[in-house]
């Protein structure tokens, strides 16, 4: 996020798109609701009428996958009616002319045709946004999990820059990160293109720096992203795989395909705390310490590096993951010095990642620090791009054209399946499924469908149904709910038998390689 959670309850205006915050980021949602109770306005853009809709000034139930059309429509109105922040656009951004030309083709009527949101609503929202500044834009996976995910993100940024909302307290573009340490895993360079601290593997200076620090020669070719890795197992390009913690057999789209690929691997190692559907494919499984059995840090969505502490001893012979990697390195001929979470952070990460130079364990005993923290006296950065001065020069408008999801409903598969998380569980329930009480609070997955479709198909709430896509078929219970719009089915991926990923489509954004979890075509039958 460019901004902080501390801004949420102070904000005066929100634009929340593709984020079911009350279930996926519940505590963040409480601050938004506090702000609304204090008079803030909120535009909620979501195909479903999620719990936040009760608090929204306006809820825009757009069609799945039409975000760019809607955002372009809004920007069209802002420019046409001369409501955008001209001063900001002139002094803080480049590329306005290209943006203007692109959104020219999205008059509200066309945006309505694509998104299903009435043209007059689009005009009204644009005017409301222009009149209430700054506004915080928040998005989550409803934006990124599309084949046009990157363009969705660009469009959110374009919209906020056009309004002059980036670089201020209670403004900005704020993706809420899904998992506890997804921010940190990126910051640490668990990505095929960057070293820790986002230093590019293709940059000779960065390469030289890490070669010196690690005392080895490094490769400057970009690595594979996850989808390519699995396809590589399938076609023999990849022989060995190390899977740390993730239950990819349930979390990746199109389970049948993923499992088929893993079956072809020559050698798979897993570090985990439990057996999962994924460890079945492993040749070696290494038992790791869990959360609260080791010392280290997590980095939250607002870039705050927080301590995680050891509170109990790990069971049996379980060992810290960092130790396991270090021991393998040793057996492959390298001795690494750091021998604890603190030593790794203080002596390596903070020495190598310039944005984290000022973060040491001794400084984050209480509240953590928000990077960038360039030196040991720096107090952290609650919001980025102060007053619109973008860290990499001027803010660059990158206009995007709307593109439909890769698979759209047709006669055979007439409904759109969109997926996400539910409040009481997390991912594949390896943790929440083993925490007392949570299974009782939510014991099974449901196919959430609209009243209209339920009526059409003669399905009553609680009846068993079969849901199928071109990739698979599952049986589960139908939940008939006013939350879901006609033509749409919504479900989560928490339960193995009724996991949405038997059905989801393994197609990806061409740049980010994020899968299109939010849209595929399905058919629903009463059992």
């Amino acid at each position, binding site marked *: 996020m460019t901004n902080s*959670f501390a801004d949420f309850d102070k904000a005066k205006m929100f634009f929340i798109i593709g984020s079911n915050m009350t279930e996926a980021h*519940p*505590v963040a949602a*409480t601050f938004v609701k506090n702000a609304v*109770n204090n008079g803030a306005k909120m535009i909620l853009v979501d195909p479903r009428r999620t719990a936040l809709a009760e608090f929204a000034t306006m809820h825009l139930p757009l069609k799945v996958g039409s975000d760019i059309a809607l955002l372009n429509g809004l920007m069209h109105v802002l420019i046409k009616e001369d409501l955008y922040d001209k001063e900001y656009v002139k002094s803080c951004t480049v590329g306005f002319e290209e943006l203007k030309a692109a959104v020219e083709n999205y008059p509200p009527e066309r945006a309505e045709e694509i998104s299903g949101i009435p043209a007059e609503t689009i005009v009204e929202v644009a005017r409301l946004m222009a009149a209430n500044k700054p506004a915080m834009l928040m998005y989550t996976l409803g934006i*990124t*999990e599309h084949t046009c995910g990157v363009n969705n993100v660009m469009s959110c940024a374009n919209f906020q820059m056009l309004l002059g909302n980036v670089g201020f307290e209670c403004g900005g573009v704020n993706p809420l*990160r*899904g*998992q*506890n*340490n*997804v921010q940190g895993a*990126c910051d*640490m*360079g*668990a*990505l*095929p293109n960057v070293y820790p601290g986002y230093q590019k593997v293709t940059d000779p200076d960065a390469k030289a720096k*890490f070669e010196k620090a*690690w005392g080895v020669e490094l*490769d400057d070719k970009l*690595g594979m992203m996850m989808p390519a*890795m699995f396809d590589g197992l399938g076609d023999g390009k*990849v022989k*060995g*795989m*190390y*899977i*740390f913690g993730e239950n990819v057999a349930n979390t990746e789209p199109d389970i049948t395909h993923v499992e088929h690929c893993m079956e072809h691997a020559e050698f798979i190692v897993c570090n985990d*705390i*439990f*057996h999962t559907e994924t460890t079945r494919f492993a*040749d*070696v499984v*290494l*038992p790791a310490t869990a*959360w609260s059995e080791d010392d280290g840090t997590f980095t*939250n969505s607002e870039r*705050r590096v*927080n*301590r*995680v502490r050891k*509170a109990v*001893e790990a069971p049996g012979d379980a*060992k810290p*993951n*960092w130790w396991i990697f270090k*021991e*393998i390195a040793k057996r*492959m001929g*390298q001795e690494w010095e750091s021998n604890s979470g603190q030593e*790794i952070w203080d002596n390596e*990460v903070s020495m190598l990642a310039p944005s984290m130079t000022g973060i040491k364990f001794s400084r984050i005993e209480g509240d953590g620090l928000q990077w960038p923290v360039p030196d040991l006296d720096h107090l952290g950065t609650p919001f980025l791009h102060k007053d619109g001065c973008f860290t990499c020069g001027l803010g660059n408008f990158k206009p995007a054209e709307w593109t439909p999801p890769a698979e759209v409903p047709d006669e055979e598969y007439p409904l759109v399946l969109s997926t996400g998380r539910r*409040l009481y569980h997390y991912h594949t329930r390896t*943790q929440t499924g*083993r925490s*007392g*009480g949570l299974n009782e*609070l939510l014991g099974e997955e449901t196919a959430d469908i609209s009243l209209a479709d339920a009526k059409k198909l003669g399905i009553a709430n609680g009846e068993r149904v079969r849901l199928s896509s071109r990739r698979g078929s599952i049986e589960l219970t139908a939940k008939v709910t006013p939350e879901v719009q006609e033509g749409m089915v919504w479900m989560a991926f928490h339960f193995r038998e009724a996991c949405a990923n038997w059905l989801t489509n393994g197609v990806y954004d061409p740049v980010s390689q994020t899968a299109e979890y939010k849209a595929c075509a399905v058919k629903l039958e009463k059992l």
Partner: protein
Amino acid sequence: MAQMKINGQSVAFEPGQSVLQAAQANGIKIPTLCYLAEATPTGVCRMCVVEVVGADRLLPSCDTPAGEGMEVITDSPRVTEARKAILEMLLASGEHNCLLCEANGECKLQALAYEYGLEAPATLPAKAEFPLDDDYPVITRDFSKCILCGRCVQACNEVQVNLAIPAPWGPRQDQEPDKGWFPLVDYENCTHCGQCVQACPVGALTEKKAKGKGRSWETKKVRTTCPYCGVGCQLWLHVKDNQIIKVTAVEDAQPNRGRLCVKGRFGYDFIHSPERLTTPLIKENGEFREASWDEALDLVAERFMEIKKEHGPDSIAGVSCARSTNEDSYNMQKLFRAVIGTNNIDHCART
């Protein structure tokens, strides 16, 4: 900054602060029961009463704005008498038997009764006269211990804004009028976040899973970060005998300021599951068998070196973990880059 006098001492306060906040900001303690810092004061318990020069009644400091030149006495005999009378009434009004109460040692009523030298009432009303809500999996609501302070209502409606506890004013329709009001929960709206439990000053609302597991003075409190979503809430782990027995929110901490959701508060005991992996496993003829660390690690290193030699470093790929620590992720990418020699390292950053 404006000035006022508390107990004869001149203190500065910010306009808009209550007498209680002004006192607290200046290190002067006033006891409270119903006051919940993050919500609007309700002034229902009157434990925080003070004498204000010029006012004939005692005033609740939590609900009285500080004023320029105001003179306040927080601990006069009159104030002490009033507080004792309130405490006596509260102690006698419910089944306040500390012996078996989960809140023993953390209860505000118990602490104040001790501080003000009160004696236990001769008889207590029977538990059976009060509603007991023990039907849901993570929270027990035993209203025989409820002092009707309304903090749970504030926590639910104003802090979490889940609107699951109808407001306290007046008796509820489904209660006998003479039994008064109890903060019963509307489970249509309840998210089981436990914010009401955290707010309850006594043992009326308690965490079911912690029952009988340990007293506050036997536990060690360890601060950590929630293992679920990207908000990164700050938690206290209450630990006894190598077990986490309960989780509460760290008050005044960024980013969550004392709040948690159901997963952060109740999703902790998976680590104690008997299904945990406790020893390295090697697959042989399709079955896993137990192995020593040396054997397992040697095998991994050997296989990776073979594959690297035969097919090159790029034939090995790594999926890192977005749930584990930064230090673990750092070492994993270092293993791939510096040892295996490939940038084939990724994780589910995109999901």
